[in-house]
């Protein structure tokens, strides 16, 4: 039997590939406990809405299973599932009044009229719209429509309430109000809420648990404080709140070097480990010049209401600081940070690897380009027989066209060009993160896989680029044949 472990809903290895070949969700594993307020957070196109739609039943997973109370519901139609959805644009029925909209689900269940009336009255009370039964949908404001949409879902007493960016169409003030009200409804009703948003502040305010997603995968699951203070990757840190992100190295026990300074820290990694250091702007403390761990020159100051946002240039690095004290552009300052506030993670392996083939003349080929590499470098220890056949180190004859060579190259060794076709492969910039003294770019290539490129200059999202890879920086490994 299926073990539920107290989870109301469980996703096991769920994958969704659409008919056009786009894979929106890749092998998702997730368990949600009864009564939790869980938020799927991520940039648009990260798969969060598709995941929600699979729980609702509007989209069916192409792989994996969805368990509700331990029972597989992956292929159940939406009307057979005990979950209800609040849609992004409300999806209220325009030809029905408020009462008819809210009663729709109850009428489907064939409840007696007086029971329906009572429930509609109660739920209107819950969303603070008493007496609105006879109003037409078109006479309601955006905020009121939102409340009716929530009431229409809640009145069915679903086991799980799904909310697909429900506050996206409201103005800021109304949004803040509804956030608190939704949180309060969740507390009162004890129903499991699954909420989808791309607004990190909304996620931090409302959730018991945040699921950070990108490119159809889960990057991190945790309580809002954990996600904010202990992001699992540079992407999460960059997406949740503002961050200073630096590449660095461990130089001793609880000592790390980054941004041109030696910092004490509380994360223990082996000496020599390549690390990524994440510093929140509000945690960096300005000191008189010479007194901090690192020093620099103020390059810009912006007043943001409750604080100043100060940018300090320190050598080749840039640090963003939020401080209640003002600073003057051009001023020399020192900077220090409490070891507790430095979050260090092991640097992700960003080496780019791709597979290339050999042609009859042992030239390395990739993406219809010939890589001008010395065959002796590519095939170390291999030799050629008297009649020109290729022999592997054990002396077996191998057909060169059946060999795959794995080529590895570091992100800093790839150069970007805006001239199409000038490099080995073309693509566009699909993501970028600023890392103190350089930008780290993700290039989605025409072949469908991603390259990571470090460059000190700023390129724009979606810029078309060609990747130039110097052959002397490549490392080769002979693959299986």
């Amino acid at each position, binding site marked *: 039997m299926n073990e539920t472990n107290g989870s109301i809903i469980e996703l096991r290895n769920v994958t969704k590939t659409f008919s056009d070949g786009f894979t929106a969700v890749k092998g998702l594993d997730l368990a949600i406990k009864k009564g939790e307020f869980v938020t799927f957070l991520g940039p648009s196109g990260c798969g969060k809405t598709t995941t929600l739609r699979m729980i*609702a*039943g*509007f989209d069916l997973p192409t792989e994996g299973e969805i368990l509700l109370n331990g029972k597989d519901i992956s292929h159940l*139609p*939406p*009307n057979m599932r005990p*979950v*209800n*959805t609040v*849609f*992004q*644009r409300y*999806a*209220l*029925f*325009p*030809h029905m009044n408020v009462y008819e909209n809210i009663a*729709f*689900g109850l009428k*489907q*269940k064939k409840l007696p009229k007086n029971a329906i009336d009572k429930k509609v009255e109660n739920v209107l009370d819950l969303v603070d719209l008493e007496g609105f039964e006879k109003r*037409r*949908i*078109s006479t309601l404001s955006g905020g009121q429509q939102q409340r009716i949409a929530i009431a*229409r*879902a809640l009145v*069915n007493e679903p086991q799980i309430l799904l909310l697909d960016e429900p506050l996206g169409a409201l103005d800021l003030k109304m949004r803040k109000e509804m956030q608190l009200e939704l949180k309060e409804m969740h507390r009162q009703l004890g129903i499991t809420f699954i909420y989808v948003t791309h607004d990190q502040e909304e996620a931090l305010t409302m959730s018991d648990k945040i699921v950070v997603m990108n490119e159809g995968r889960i990057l991190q699951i945790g309580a809002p404080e954990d996600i904010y203070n202990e992001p699992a990757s540079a992407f999460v840190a960059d997406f949740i709140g503002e961050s200073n992100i630096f590449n660095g190295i461990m130089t001793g026990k609880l000592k790390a070097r980054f941004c041109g300074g030696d910092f004490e820290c509380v994360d223990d990694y082996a000496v020599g480990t390549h690390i990524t250091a994440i510093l929140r702007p509000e945690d960096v403390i300005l000191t008189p010049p010479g007194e901090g761990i690192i020093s620099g020159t103020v390059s810009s100051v912006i007043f943001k209401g409750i604080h100043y946002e100060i940018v300090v240039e320190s050598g080749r690095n840039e640090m963003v600081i939020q401080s209640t004290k003002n600073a003057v552009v051009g001023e020399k300052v020192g900077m220090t940070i409490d070891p507790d506030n430095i979050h260090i993670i092991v640097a992700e392996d960003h080496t780019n690897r791709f597979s290339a083939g050999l042609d009859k003349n042992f030239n390395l080929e990739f993406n219809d380009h010939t890589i001008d590499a010395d065959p002796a470098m590519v095939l170390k220890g291999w030799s050629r027989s008297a009649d020109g056949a290729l022999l592997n180190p054990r002396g077996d004859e191998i057909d060169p066209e059946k060999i795959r060579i794995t080529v590895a190259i570091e992100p800093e060794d790839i150069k970007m060009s805006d001239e199409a076709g000038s490099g080995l492969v073309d693509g566009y910039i699909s993501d970028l993160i600023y890392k103190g003294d350089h930008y780290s770019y993700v290039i989605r290539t025409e072949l469908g896989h991603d390259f990571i490129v470090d460059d000190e200059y700023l390129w724009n999202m979606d810029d078309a680029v060609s990747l130039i890879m110097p052959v002397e920086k490549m490392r080769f490994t002979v693959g299986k044949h």
Partner: protein
Amino acid sequence: MKFSRKALGIPYYIFLLVFVAAPLAVIIVYAFTNGQGHFTAVNFIGFFTDPNTLGTLCYSLAIAIVTTVVCLLIAYPTAYILANSNIKAKAVILMIIIMPMWINFSLRVTALKEVLSVLEGNLAFYPFFNTVLGMTYDFLPFMILPIYNTLSKLDGSLLEAAADLGAGKASSFIKITLPLSLPGIVSGVTMVFLPSMTNYVILDMLYNSTYIMGSLIGSYFSANNWHAGSMIALILLLIIGLFSLFTGSLTDDAAESKGGALL
């Protein structure tokens, strides 16, 4: 001289005066006068006492109602399939519907006449059937297109919401799709019902001995009885006006489902 925006409306007012108001006035005057130019209610009374006229009115209504119902029954499923099919199939189906409209109307009816003569032998055997068939053939696109228009604009998330709230496919069709496509239906019904009352050219071309309202007016006019003919035209106008008022009130109810349905 100052050029006012109102001046831009002048050609329209002239058009209205010459082609709508003036003919209408002429019809009203003729309907209530006799050959000597004196006021009379004879034509009005005559309309409601002449069994021939009343019979033709009923026959016309029967033709129009049956044609409209048949068109609706064929058009709704067609429009539904069209709205829910992929782009490639959509282009082909739309082409099949619209292509006959490229061919001249009389040519189409003549072709139909020839086919029917072969099948039926003598066209006079089935006048009612032939008339309904001819009109359906001619007016069907005017029913399909407005319905297709409203169905294709239907917000898919409403159907998802209905399913989410427990409605099965049939239930969400009856409660969501059908009421929201009502403006398209009303618009289609108007565009088919009104011409089927009066378009006697189809009857004539199908060698039909029966009369509808249009043919009746035509026959009075060709017999130089302008007064009785005008009265029939006037009463027909009133019937059509009442019908439009009725369908208009239906569309107002469903007006919130965004967008007029007329092409």
